[in-house]
Every structure is written in structure tokens, then in C-alpha cells.
């Protein structure tokens, strides 16, 4: 099986993870193709380049000599067409590359919903390096920008623009920020943080069209309520869609994304897909068909590498988790927390008096088993929540050991007693008593896992 030529289209996290893990397993020739950039960089860090926290060079997770050292060839160029019949990629400019196996890791692009003026100069999303270049190009001549679409990218763009002294108007369709994903209290907390930083945040407000100046650059937006807001840049941040055009043209089966089985094979022989561009035919429990986050791209890449090298590995990503930062407030989520609890779930929400720190728990009414958590302004320990949720640990035990999940820096105020008191007031039927505090890391984690068996049986009483 050696001496195949494996070509990876896309040098994002999925593509390079696949390349690295293939190289760990075998000696095949590997080429990573990208039109976006010569080397892999972390697109999650684009905002930090713009704000001057990092240089582009700083955002490369591997130094430039990593690739030749690991015999991973890099080809910088845009692919025009995938010829699955002859198993080759045709590049713009006439170049081509033959493959034995092809991995599509083409990523995604900002959604455009057919707004008039959406392709004007100064109108863009933020996903690729080219988006950053455009931002740099137009920012110096921008006094006000309008961001349309509330979500993680929108908040990042707002922070970026404010760092350059550009005023920001933020149009959000929902009543509360990102309320389609976040429950009410959480969404309100994020909304307050956005306002605190001086963003002109407009809820229940939607983009209708972008108006052009005489030179084809955005000069204003019109909202659905008919208001005209003058601006020099418009950011479209209502989610992203998989890049499927090349695959579709090549006859690879696509829906929203490139369709893959649980081993990341597409409908076309010798063609695989993963990352932001892929859509699972079978959706693992608690997950979604298209998952466009950094770590899923990484897991996809690892799985493709294993399967390509003959180890059958089906996709079992485990407990959902994610994190983000809304200006100065960090957010982490583990398990499933829908914006509304299901009828079988209880919901517990606590926030501190300033409304900048919060925790939300979801647990089953019957068994008390925890199913998910959102924390804002607190850092929690991934390993502990994974254990609690996968093990269906009852909320009583979880709250009693809540200190075990505390991942805040040393000397930080510990909120566990307040959280527990609020919980007891609301759910006296789940009596918990605080038995672990952060500070004795070794002991409390050890105890937590050592006594797991017995504690589970006591629960829910």
C-alpha cells in the first residue's frame, strides 16, 4: 500500500492533521494543496493579527521547516477542477497533480443570503486569510462598520474593529444575542458584555440591503425596518457554508456539505472529505451533521488518516464541547445545552451579582443525571465534565464536587458555595453538600474518581 500519492486539498486544520497522522503511519507521498496560503496557519487567530497581538508568522502552529522534515510536500495554488476519472487536480494556469487518494478539506465560506449589494467592495465575512487582507485594505478608510448576524465571528469582528477605533453597529435578528443557541440568561449576559464595550447593538434587526457609492463600495446598509445606517464596511457573519462547488462539479455527492460515511469516504472512490466542508450521512448522538469547529476538524483529520492507512475507524466524537470568548468573557460548554430545555430536563442557572459570571446546568428530571453545562467567566475542566456527562453522574454529586471542575487560575475567587446555595434553594429535592474545593487538586480529583462507583448508587435520593 506504500508509495501511493495522497493529495490533500486544503491546508486548514483538517488537512494538515490528516497529513501528520498519515505520515505517522506510512511512507506514502503526501502533498497538501492550498490556494489560501503557502503554510498552515490558525484561522482562529486571524483576529489577533488584525489587532496586533500576533503576527501572521506567530499563527503558524508548525514552523516552516516542519513540512520538509516530515516529507509533506506543499503546493500553493488554486484548484480549478477535480478530474475524478483520471484521478487528478487541474490548477488555474494549467498545472495539474495526479493522486491515488484525495482528501477534500476545502473548508467553508461566509453565508450570503442573496442580499442586494452583498458583493460590493467593503462587504465581507471573516474566514480566510484573504478576508483579513480585505479587512486591512478597507479598515483605514472606515469610520463605521455594520455587522450583520449575531454569533461568535460577529463578536470577534466587533472587537477587531473597535481596536482600530472604528464604530460598530451590530444587527442581530433575535431578541437576545445568539439566542438560537444560547438560553436566555446566557444570551443576555453576552449582550450586556457587547454593550459594555461600546457596540451599537441592535436586537431584532436584520439586514435588507447594502447601498453602493459611485465607485462600487458600500456606503450604507438598509435594515428590514427601513432604517439607513451609513457605513464604509459591512460584515456578513450569519454562519458559514461548506465549500462544495469543486466536489459537486466533479460528481461527488453533496447536500449542504460533501456527504461522507462514518469513515469519511465520499460517494466517489478514492475521495475522502472532512472538516468544515463535510456533512455526515449518519449523525452521531448529540452531534450535528455539519460541525464547523476547530477540534472537530482535527478529529476528522485523524480519522481520515487512520482509515486511509487501513485501520477501520468510525466517527465517535464523544461528548460535545466548545469554547469562545466574547470580548472579556470566556465561554465553555460541555454536553448539550439547547436554548430551551427539553420536557425531560431540568434547568438551573446562576449568575454573580454583576451579571458577568454564570453557570447553567441541565439534568434529567427523573434520574438527576447531568446532560450539559454552560459556563461564562469561569474556566472549567474538560476531563471532569466529560466524565460527569458520559457517566450520567447525578446533579447532586456534580454539585458536591463542583470544585473538581474549577480550572480558574490560583487565588481566584471560588464561587462554588454561592452556586450550591442557589441550587439548594431551587432544588431542595437534590440535597448536595460541597465536599471538594479547588486548591487540593491532587486529592480531590483522586477521591472523585476513586469513589465513583459508590457515589453513583447513592444519588437522586
Amino acid at each position, binding site marked *: 500500500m506504500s508509495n501511493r500519492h495522497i493529495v490533500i486539498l486544503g491546508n486548514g*486544520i483538517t488537512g494538515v492533521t490528516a497529513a501528520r497522522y498519515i505520515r505517522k503511519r506510512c511512507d506514502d507521498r503526501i502533498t497538501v494543496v492550498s490556494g489560501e496560503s503557502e503554510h498552515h496557519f*490558525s484561522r*482562529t*487567530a486571524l483576529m*489577533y493579527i488584525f*489587532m*496586533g*497581538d*500576533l*503576527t501572521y508568522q*506567530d*499563527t*503558524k*502552529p508548525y*514552523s516552516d521547516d516542519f513540512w520538509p522534515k516530515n516529507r509533506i510536500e506543499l503546493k500553493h495554488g488554486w484548484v480549478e477542477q477535480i478530474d475524478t476519472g483520471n484521478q487528478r487536480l487541474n490548477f488555474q494556469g494549467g498545472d495539474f497533480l495526479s493522486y491515488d487518494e484525495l482528501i477534500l478539506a476545502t473548508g467553508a465560506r461566509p453565508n450570503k443570503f442573496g442580499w442586494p449589494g452583498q458583493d460590493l467592495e467593503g462587504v465581507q465575512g471573516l474566514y480566510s486569510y484573504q478576508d483579513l487582507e480585505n479587512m486591512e485594505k*478597507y479598515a*483605514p*478608510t*472606515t*469610520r463605521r462598520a455594520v455587522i450583520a448576524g449575531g454569533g461568535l465571528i460577529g463578536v470577534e469582528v466587533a472587537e477587531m474593529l473597535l*481596536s*482600530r*477605533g*472604528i464604530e460598530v453597529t451590530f444587527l442581530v435578528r433575535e431578541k437576545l444575542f445568539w439566542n438560537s443557541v444560547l438560553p436566555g440568561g446566557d444570551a443576555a449576559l453576552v449582550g450586556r458584555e457587547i454593550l*459594555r*464595550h461600546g457596540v451599537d447593538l441592535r436586537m431584532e434587526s436584520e439586514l435588507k440591503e447594502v447601498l453602493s*457609492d*459611485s*465607485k462600487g*463600495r458600500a456606503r450604507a446598509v438598509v435594515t428590514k425596518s427601513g432604517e439607513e445606517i451609513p457605513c464604509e464596511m459591512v460584515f456578513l457573519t450569519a454562519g458559514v457554508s461548506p465549500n462544495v462547488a469543486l466536489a459537486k462539479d466533479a460528481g461527488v455527492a453533496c447536500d449542504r456539505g460533501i456527504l461522507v460515511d462514518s469513515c469519511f469516504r465520499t460517494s466517489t472512490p478514492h475521495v475522502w472529505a472532512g472538516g468544515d466542508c463535510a456533512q455526515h450521512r449518519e449523525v452521531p448522538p448529540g452531534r450535528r451533521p455539519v460541525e464547523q469547529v*476547530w*477540534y472537530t476538524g482535527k478529529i476528522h483529520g485523524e480519522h481520515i488518516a487512520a482509515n486511509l492507512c487501513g485501520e477501520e475507524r468510525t466517527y465517535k466524537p464523544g461528548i460535545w*464541547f466548545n*469554547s*469562545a470568548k466574547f*470580548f*472579556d468573557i*470566556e465561554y*465553555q460548554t460541555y454536553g448539550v445545552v439547547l436554548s430551551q430545555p427539553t420536557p425531560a430536563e431540568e434547568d438551573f442557572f446562576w449568575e454573580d451579582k454583576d451579571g458577568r459570571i454564570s453557570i447553567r446546568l441541565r439534568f434529567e428530571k427523573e434520574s438527576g443525571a447531568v446532560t450539559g453545562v454552560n459556563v461564562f467567566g469561569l*474556566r*472549567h*475542566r*474538560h*476531563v471532569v465534565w*466529560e*466524565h460527569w456527562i*458520559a*457517566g450520567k453522574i447525578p446533579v447532586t454529586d456534580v454539585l458536591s464536587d463542583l470544585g473538581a471542575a474549577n*480550572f480558574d*487560575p*490560583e*487565588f*481566584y*475567587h471560588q464561587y462554588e458555595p454561592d452556586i450550591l446555595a442557589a441550587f439548594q434553594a431551587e432544588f431542595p429535592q437534590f440535597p448536595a453538600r460541597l465536599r471538594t474545593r479547588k486548591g487540593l*487538586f*491532587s486529592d480531590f*480529583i*483522586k477521591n472523585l*474518581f476513586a469513589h*465513583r462507583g459508590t457515589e453513583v448508587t447513592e444519588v437522586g435520593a
Partner: protein
Amino acid sequence: MNDLTSNLSYESHSIAHSGDRLGVLEKTALAFVASGLLLLAASLFGVSSKMPEATRALWLAVAWASIAGGGLTFGLHKHLTDKPGIRNNRKTTDSLTARGAWGWSLAILLTSFYIVLYWFPGLLDGLIRLHDPLSQALRGKAADQWFVYGTFYTFAILVMGAKAIAKYRHSRYQILRTSVIMITQLGFAYLLPAVFAKLNQPEVYLSYLWPLAYDKLFPGTLDQFLQAGNIGFFIVGWFVIGTLIATPVLTYFYGKRWYCSWVCGCGGLANTAGDSFRQNSDKSLKAWKIERWTIHSVLALIVILTTLLWFEPVMPDVLKGPVYLLRQWYGFLIGAAFAGVIGVGFYPLMGTRVWCRFGCPMAAILGLLQRFNSRFRITTNGAQCISCGNCSKYCEMGIDVRHYAQRGQNIIRASCVGCGLCAAVCPRGVLSLENGPKDDRYNHEKGLSLLGDLKSL
């Protein structure tokens, strides 16, 4: 771009980067700092021991009040007018912090100051005489170049420490750590030695142990202390216990940070006055390789030198010559050129911990202890890392933190001084400085410290 600009109804350059303009208050504050420094510089030409003490005292007081007042106003205003939180904007574009013209100028200025201080102190005579009144008050004797240097050093740590606290006021770890550094410098490395001097006792800095204060375990030095009576006995006990017992015990429990980031004046200066330059440390593998050679060579040198000094009485004929030479060269090359000139002079170019990372033998010992016999680690939180690179960028020791974090591995590196900034700048809550059982420090799979247990679920 010109076309675009002219199209707009306002001037483009007045909009962009409006955030980095200095306000009137900040400009005034900087003017005070500058005039204070000029006053000090003027003393180089106009002050001698003939000038009345009262005049010198006033001159000195006005100069330092101006520097400290201006510095505090500037630093506090800069950070307190911004919201609490991590603000590293424009670090990679500002001339001062990104090795531009300002950065180079400052580096040249600092380096020149150290060269004069170490090898041409005669040029500083006016400045030294200016500090006589303060030295008389504190130490009961005339100033020398090291007292002047200590005064500069302590002012820098106190003023810039206040700025650092304002900058990191959202983090109790940083507030506490910086406060302890400031108090240690003022008390243990400035006032207490002065009190000793006033009592006619050895003027020692208790915050520097062997081998950083390399002569502290030399037989001759110990003799000298022991002849000084009770305080001398205390000092000898302090250095012996500090080096042989406290160092390994504290490092076992807390890692080298107990010293490098909470006590040591070199670390203190780096984390206060030097904080704006921490990102300029070299993160390359090559730098790490060089670092391991240089720092352990210095350690070997000082261990050899100390051992030879203890053996010297046994075979004085053989050892006297080489030991004298070695001692002189160590003092010149390591004590002065490396620790001082390069260590601080190169802040704006190579980051703030050049000495700590490439040269300090104390850091080398603490590093070996931390690497092989300590409960300290930086824990990586599961698989939350997004490889953004902030942790590596702002590591003053040049550790490529991301290399470990993105693989889900904990970070256990000899050089880590535990300043806590990697954890602070992480936008996803991935890193945490922790002490825990030695056996589960490394987690290569996913950073899940109890992976075995979890797999059985």
C-alpha cells in the same frame, strides 16, 4: 486608496488608530519622567562632594519624585482607563514593542548605561554624589555605584510594578505575585541591606542565593560573615538553608516559580519594567538548544569554581592561580556582561528573560529540580486548544507552549518560571498552573489526567 479616501466626508487618518494616540495627561506624565531623568543626567556634570548635602537632597528628591510621579501617572492612566482584561493590541506593530526604531534606541541606551556602570563608574561620579544624602540616611555612609544602581532598580520595579498591577488587575494571581515581587525588592534587596550597612554589618541582598549570588557560598565570604557576629551567623544560616533546603523543598511543591516569579529581583524587573517586551523572546527550537547548552555551562562553571575555592586551602600551590583567574573571568563575563549588560540591555530586542533563560545558574538548578522532581505543571485542558499562538507569543522564556497545548499535553519544562501569562492570554481557558502528584504530570494522549479511568466508562 486615495480615491476611496477622498470620497469620504472625513479625513481617513484621523479615524484609524485613534486608540493609540497619547492624551494630554499621558504626554504631561511622560514629560515629568523625562525631566526627572534629565535632572539625574545633569548631575553627571554639575554635582560633586563639595555641593551642600541639602542642595543635593533637594535635587535628588525633585528628580525621583518627578520620575516616579510621572511614571505612575502614565502607567496607571494607560491601563485604568481601559477595561480590565488582556490587552495586547498593537504589540506587534508599535515601534517600541516590535523591535522598531524606539525599541532599538532603548536597547542601546540601556546597554550603554550598563557598560558605564560596570566598567566606567568614574563617569557616573556626579550621579553617585547626588545620591549621597539618600545613602547617608539609609546606610549611614556615602553612596557608591551599586547603591545608585539599586535605587534605579527598586524605583523601576515599584513604579512599573504598579503599572503591571493595573494592567493585570483582572487576575488575582498577577496582583498577588507582582505585589510580592515589589515588596521583596524594596525590603530584602534594598532597605534591609541598607539597615545591615548602617549597623556596620555585611550589606547583603537576602533575596539572592547561591549560585545566582555566586560568592555567597565561597569559603572566604562565609568567613567574613561569621566574623561579623550574630547578624553574620543569621546571614550564613539564611544562605545555607536557603540554598540547600528551601530551594529543593519549595521547588518540589511549587516549581521554580516560587523563586523566579515571586522573589528574584531579575524576574521582578522582567515582569514589571520589562513586561511590554516579553513577546520578543525567541521561540525557535534552535534557541531552546542554545539555551540548554549555555545555562548548564554557566552552572557547571560556578559549581567548579565554588568547589575549587573550598579545596584551595588543601592545595594552595596548585589552585591559587587558576582559581583567581576563573573567579575574575566569571565575574566579568557572567556576573557583569551576561547578567547585566545583555540581561537587561537587550530587553527590547530579545525579550525580558535573556539572562534567566540563557545564563542564570540559579534558574538552571531550579529548572533541573522542576523538570525531574516537582509537583508543578501547566495543565492543558482537554482538547479546547485552537492553536492561536497567544501562549507561545507571550511566553517570556521562549517556550513554544502551543506545541504542547495543541497536542493536549501538559507543559513541564525546566525553563518555565510560572509567570502565568500563557494561561492569562489564552482565549479558551486551556492552560492552568497547578501543583499536583508527580506521577500524573504528563498526559500525552489528550491531557486527560485520568484517561484510563475514563476509557472504562
